[in-house]
């Protein structure tokens, strides 16, 4: 009986110590695992991105994507590990133009960011915008017929939104130099290869 009187309070104290000990153990484990939960969330985010939406997470590319380096004027068709096409291109010059008559203003930059191929055209015609005439000091025509140019864009054009295209050029000697009005010019042979590989929805990374 005496032993029981001693052991029962001891057991109660032990249970309290057990609870405190387990609490410490849990918080200690929590510290070691602190990186796991966000990392798991990150993986989920990547998968969400891979389903085709830009969203807020990182993208996982299962198909080749296009990369455009505006400073070096280089275009790549690549995956994370392999480069399938590396070519000289021409991107926007960054020049500015103001129409003295109307005050309209243009900056000829290739936009940076993540885009997707939104159109693919064979034998494209260029419909000259107003700035093409203003820049040359010509009068802006009233009819579409006077704006159409069948030879300027080369054999193919790959659109990536807002009127921006990857297309061919008559001035291949200027590839590698920033001379365009915002579109990306590519040599005929490289354009042919890129057009064959790029599909609607292919991602385009411009930096």
């Amino acid at each position, binding site marked *: 009986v005496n032993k029981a009187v001693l052991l*029962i309070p001891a*057991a109660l104290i032990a249970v309290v110590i057990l609870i405190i000990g387990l609490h410490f153990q849990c*918080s200690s484990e929590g510290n070691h695992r602190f990186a796991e939960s966000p990392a798991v969330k990150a993986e989920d985010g990547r998968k969400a991105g891979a389903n085709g939406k830009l969203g807020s997470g*990182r993208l996982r590319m299962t198909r080749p994507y296009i990369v455009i380096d505006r400073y070096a004027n280089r275009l790549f068709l690549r995956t994370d590990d392999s480069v399938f096409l590396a070519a000289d291109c021409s991107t926007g*010059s960054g020049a500015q133009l103001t129409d003295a008559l109307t005050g309209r203003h243009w900056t000829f930059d290739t936009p940076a960011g993540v885009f997707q191929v939104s159109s693919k055209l064979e034998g494209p015609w260029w419909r000259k915008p107003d700035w093409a005439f203003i820049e040359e000091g010509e009068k802006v025509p009233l009819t579409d017929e006077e704006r159409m140019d069948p030879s300027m864009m080369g054999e193919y054009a790959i659109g990536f939104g807002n009127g921006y295209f990857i297309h061919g050029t008559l001035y291949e000697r200027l590839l590698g130099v920033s001379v365009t009005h915002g579109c990306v010019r590519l040599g005929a042979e490289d354009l042919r290869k890129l057009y064959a590989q790029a599909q609607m929805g292919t991602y385009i990374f411009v930096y």
Partner: protein
Amino acid sequence: MHKRRWAHTYLSTKPVMRLARVAVVMALSAVVGGACPALAEGKPKATAPQAAIEYEGRYKIAETELAAHDGTYLLLDLRKKRLRLKMRGVTVRDFRLTVISDSTETASFVERVRSGDRIAKQMARVLLFEAGNRLNDTVLGIVSEATKAPPDLIQRYIPERMTATFDGGLVLTAQTDVDGSSVSIFANLLENVRLFFDRLLGAKSLTIQVSADDAVALYGALLAGPPLVLTP
């Protein structure tokens, strides 16, 4: 006789008492196994594997945060000798590099990049010390006139040496085997003075060598001020 009494007491008591003893043993083991690591939390340094796991976790979080934005960021992988430019978690350019710094300097740089609350180090400034011109003056003049763009917008530089300074006292110098000339003597002088004082204040530096083509692209990428993260 004495031994037998002890054994009898321990092995043949009633269930309540046996449970109480088990609780005492469990409590002791829980205290030894749980409370001790908790007490050790106050110690400043983890073991090497723990530190590596911890850094890997921080790296994943940092890259996830960087990949949530459209801007570019740089991942420095000294083991694979690569500098990787990424955007939205996707590799847009790989730069192969050779480390010029000695092992002590490299280790100090690595330790500094890994330290601090944020392992993604924001870029403070970049300077092209010496470079060659991609276009000669004649061609540049013709192109500039034809495109009506100022020459400085069209010209591109092939760096001989450039320096990017990142938060936390980190200086990354990239050099090539190109023979260039000073881009701006005044800017070079100013930057050299800055770097001198940075070093006095304990800045850590790393010097790498890249190819001329990669250097052009790297300089262009650095102009956008991408953060730098060291891969685990």
